[in-house]
């Protein structure tokens, strides 16, 4: 059953290979197609993240207002989030149940060398052998290692970049440093993982992350532009008319003289 499933994934990749005659490009095309399928979900999520960031000051204000009353705090937070019109997604459980698809994809990419057979398994001439691991390429000499090094850097950088982008606007220095340090440790771990992974896996992983980051930034930029536009329109339309309401000095009513 598992093998049939893996064969099917391989067939999909091979189908694209028959179009473009390059395994690396085929992997990237599969990645892009997958990303396009999940794009609406990503868009929704990025939007809700943006909205979440906008209510952050409100939440901070709440914490300042009721510092010793956690129940009241959580009640008020409940209210804020209810007002935000939080739209429910499918949920984590169904997604975790889909994890086997990913594990199969990884295994296929790892075993690609045995499946491909005679044809050269390369990404044009950029990466000569996608089954090779960076550690193996390093043993062959520095010249062969360079493309693998670039892949590794993209792969590790793609995990670090979103954190940097997210933290750029945070004022809180302590939190910023902590997050950046955590990201640094993670990037080193990713480098270590990539050291022993076939280049094909890195290609898929890196491409997917880079596309994800790009899409996220695009959505954020659009949200910001929309907000700005709305603000400008509001400033134009709802500008209150300034009325001079200064009272005049009260004069005594003239009395009739008799």
């Amino acid at each position, binding site marked *: 059953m598992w093998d049939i499933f893996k064969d099917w994934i391989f067939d999909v990749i091979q189908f694209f290979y028959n179009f473009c005659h390059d395994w690396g490009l085929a992997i990237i095309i599969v990645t892009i197609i997958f990303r396009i399928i999940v794009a609406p979900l990503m868009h929704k999520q990025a939007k809700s993240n943006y909205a979440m960031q906008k209510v952050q000051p409100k939440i901070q204000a709440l914490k300042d207002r009721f510092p010793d009353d956690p129940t009241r705090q959580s009640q008020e937070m409940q209210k804020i989030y209810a007002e935000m019109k*939080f739209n*429910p997604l499918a949920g*984590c459980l169904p997604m975790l149940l889909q994890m086997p698809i990913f594990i199969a994809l990884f295994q296929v990419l790892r075993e690609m060398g045995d499946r491909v057979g005679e044809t050269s398994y390369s990404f044009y001439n950029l990466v000569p052998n996608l089954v090779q691991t960076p550690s193996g390429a390093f043993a062959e000499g520095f010249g062969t290692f360079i493309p693998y090094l670039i892949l590794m850097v993209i792969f590790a950088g793609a995990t670090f970049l979103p954190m940097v982008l997210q933290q750029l606007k945070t004022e809180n220095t302590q939190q910023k440093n902590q997050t950046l340090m955590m990201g640094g440790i993670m990037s080193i771990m990713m480098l270590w993982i990539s050291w022993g992974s076939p280049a094909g896996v890195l290609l898929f992983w890196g491409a997917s992350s880079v596309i994800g980051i790009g899409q996220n930034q695009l959505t954020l930029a659009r949200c910001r532009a929309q907000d700005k536009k709305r603000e400008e329109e509001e400033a134009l339309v709802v500008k209150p008319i300034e009325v001079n309401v200064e009272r005049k000095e009260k004069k005594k009513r003239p009395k009739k003289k008799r």
Partner: protein
Amino acid sequence: MKKVVEVAKKVPTLFAVGLIMFYRMAISPLLPPACRFVPTCSEYGLIAFKRYGFRKGFVLTVKRILKCRPGGPCGYDPVP
């Protein structure tokens, strides 16, 4: 000796936190976003493990993930 035992007690928690961190940074960006809650399941798990230690944190996290499915509740759901 006491210190060693204390550190040893923390090992499962640290392991779990590391695992969640790895999921958040490496695996989650590959998958479509899915969580129905604020904070998300992984954030919830991190807080729960840090606050309650391994056993209770694990139970809370599993409960939370089981709740996070179509037809379940959604919205704001903090760690108790």
